[in-house]
């Protein structure tokens, strides 16, 4: 009984962790370039809608749908970058405005297009033949969809680019010492536009995975605060990619647990259980803030517009 519960739970963790992981990684890339991205929830929402829209409009091709989700996130990020990089709008205001813009836009488009509550096939699990049939190990490790298995290589790639490539060096320089990067001839505007688009594509992909991979249906506001949790995860991870992945798995585990507690027949008021992810996020943030000493890689210029001719 307990074993069944655990296997069932652990097998669901990766699917729930992937949106957090991809979104946190995307935000991390954006923030490493010094752009404070409160618009995460917005990128996720447009990604979720674009994913469903692609499937309902172009047929049930999950790969195309996920690409559309990433593209939608990147496209919305261009508006954001125009505001905060080119026009130097306060990044908090622009980020919040963007979230509400995306909420309104996805609500309007999704409703008028009639995409609400239309079930789709979406992503299906890969089959590893006999491996998938193994007891315990099979469901936990070998019955997931392609995105789950791609997430780890994506993290490795991002960590490598950030840490061991010239592009990553320039990107981190723009976030950590824009004056120095500027004097070194790095185009701050271009780096920030690029990093924001790349990161927003990942966040959009996370949103697309929510609609195409997990829910297989679209409802208004379906990211339900996951974008905000991802922002907290980046802080918790102290801007280190692998820690972000660990945090995402933790939150995936919490989310996967929620429906299973009730299914297991434990009597807990439903809406109190619903608070858990948010309270857990708060708890994790408090823990992060009170712990000092550990090396944080928070970019020094996070949230600051760069203006060379400032005197």
């Amino acid at each position, binding site marked *: 009984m307990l074993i069944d519960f655990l296997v069932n739970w652990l097998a669901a963790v990766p699917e729930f962790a992937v949106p957090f992981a991809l979104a946190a990684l995307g935000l991390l890339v954006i923030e490493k370039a010094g752009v404070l991205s409160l618009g995460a929830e917005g990128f996720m929402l447009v990604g979720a809608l674009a994913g469903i829209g692609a499937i309902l409009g172009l047929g049930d091709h999950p790969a195309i749908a996920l690409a559309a989700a990433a593209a939608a996130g990147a496209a919305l990020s261009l*508006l954001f970058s125009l505001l905060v990089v080119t*026009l130097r709008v306060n990044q908090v205001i622009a980020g*919040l405005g963007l979230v*509400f*813009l995306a909420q309104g836009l*996805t609500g309007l488009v999704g409703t008028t297009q009639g995409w609400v509550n239309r079930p789709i096939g979406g992503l299906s699990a890969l089959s590893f033949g006999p491996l998938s049939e193994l007891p315990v190990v099979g469901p936990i490790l070998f019955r997931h969809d392609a995105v789950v298995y791609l997430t780890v290589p994506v993290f490795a790639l991002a960590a490598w680019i950030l840490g061991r490539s010239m592009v990553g060096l320039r990107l981190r320089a723009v976030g950590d010492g824009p004056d120095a990067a500027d004097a070194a001839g790095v185009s701050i505007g271009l780096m920030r536009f690029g990093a924001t688009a790349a990161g927003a594509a990942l966040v959009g992909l996370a949103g697309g995975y929510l609609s195409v991979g997990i829910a297989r249906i679209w409802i208004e506001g379906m990211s339900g605060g996951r974008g905000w949790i991802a922002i907290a995860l980046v802080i918790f991870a102290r801007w280190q990619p692998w820690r972000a992945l660990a945090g995402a798995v933790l939150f995936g585990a919490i989310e996967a647990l929620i429906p299973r507690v009730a299914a297991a027949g434990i009597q807990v008021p439903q809406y109190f259980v619903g608070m858990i992810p*948010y309270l857990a*996020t708060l708890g994790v943030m408090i823990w992060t*803030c009170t712990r000092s000493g550990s090396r944080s890689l928070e970019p020094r210029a996070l949230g600051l517009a760069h203006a060379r001719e400032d005197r």
Partner: protein
Amino acid sequence: MSEISPALHRPLPAAAATAPGRRRRGRLGVEIRQHASARLQAAALAGGLAAGIACACAILVGAGVGLADLAQEFVVSILTSPESLAAVLIQAAPLAIVGLGAAFAFRVRFWNIGLEGQMIIGAVLATAVSLADLGPEPVRLILMACAAALGGAAWMLAPVLLRLRIRLNEIISTLLLNYVALNLLLHLLYGPWRDPATSFPNSALFDASERLAEIGWQNLNWGLPLALALVLAGAWLVGGSRVGFLMRVAGDNPRMGRALGLPMTGTVLAATLLSGALAGMAGFVICAGAEHRLTQSFATGYGFSGILIAFLARNTPLGVLVAASLVGVLFVAGQSLQVFYQIPGSAVQLIQAVIVLCVAASDFFVRHRLRWIA
């Protein structure tokens, strides 16, 4: 090793490698403007608003509403029909209160994104007073208002203390608490507080003594005078009292304030708790003034509107009044668009966001000077 030559042994660089043609064309220079006149600021605000409204019209026309219909809904009906005007004013009252709340927090540079959560907790406590029939009937309404204010402030307490104590980012903490408050509300409405008469997920109707009475013109209730009084009190606090002075210092450079022995922590605490209390009051005004019960989604969208209003008003109380009226028009017109043109309610949110972003972008021209350099 080819690309890195040791400087000390390097031959002189070859003649300059720039395109001589580029010099003649001229270019657009951007400079930080040290000082912007009030006229310029007003012009930028007006320009931003105009651009935002134009974008909003384009969106609505794209969604299938004719331009003439838009003019009818947004301008004509409100100017000509007293019912519509009353509806706008009823709508504007809680908006002004929550906008004032946002403005107080923003004045001390505290990003209170948790206005909706504070509204919910305020309304929940007010409803609790109503459901438990606390206190004698004549003062019940006052008790409800106080409970609402207390609730809103209490919901703010944790984020502000965490920010002051351990520098926990208040944007995230206040926002997360919105979801917690919403879940609490749903728990109550789907559980113990479900209306016994209809078994719909909202609270039982308030008694007559627990509602804001009508003031005798159309169906306006005492919510509007209350909002006006709060705005005036806010204007005095900001402009005429020592607290307002301290808030300006806390908003601009709290480190200086501390070095001069000014009570910066107390100022931030006061301003933010006031912000939460006002949000709670707004929740109370909606429940006791318009809906006469606690509903699931009474606060939806007010949080962002509050932020928008404070932003448009540049955190000035009197500006809040003007901005709240404008957003009130948007709310009321949005409702009729929803009913008569099947435009989803999210359009109202989209329009607000577009206006915020346009006004924020227009600030560029206040803070920068563009110059053509030949």
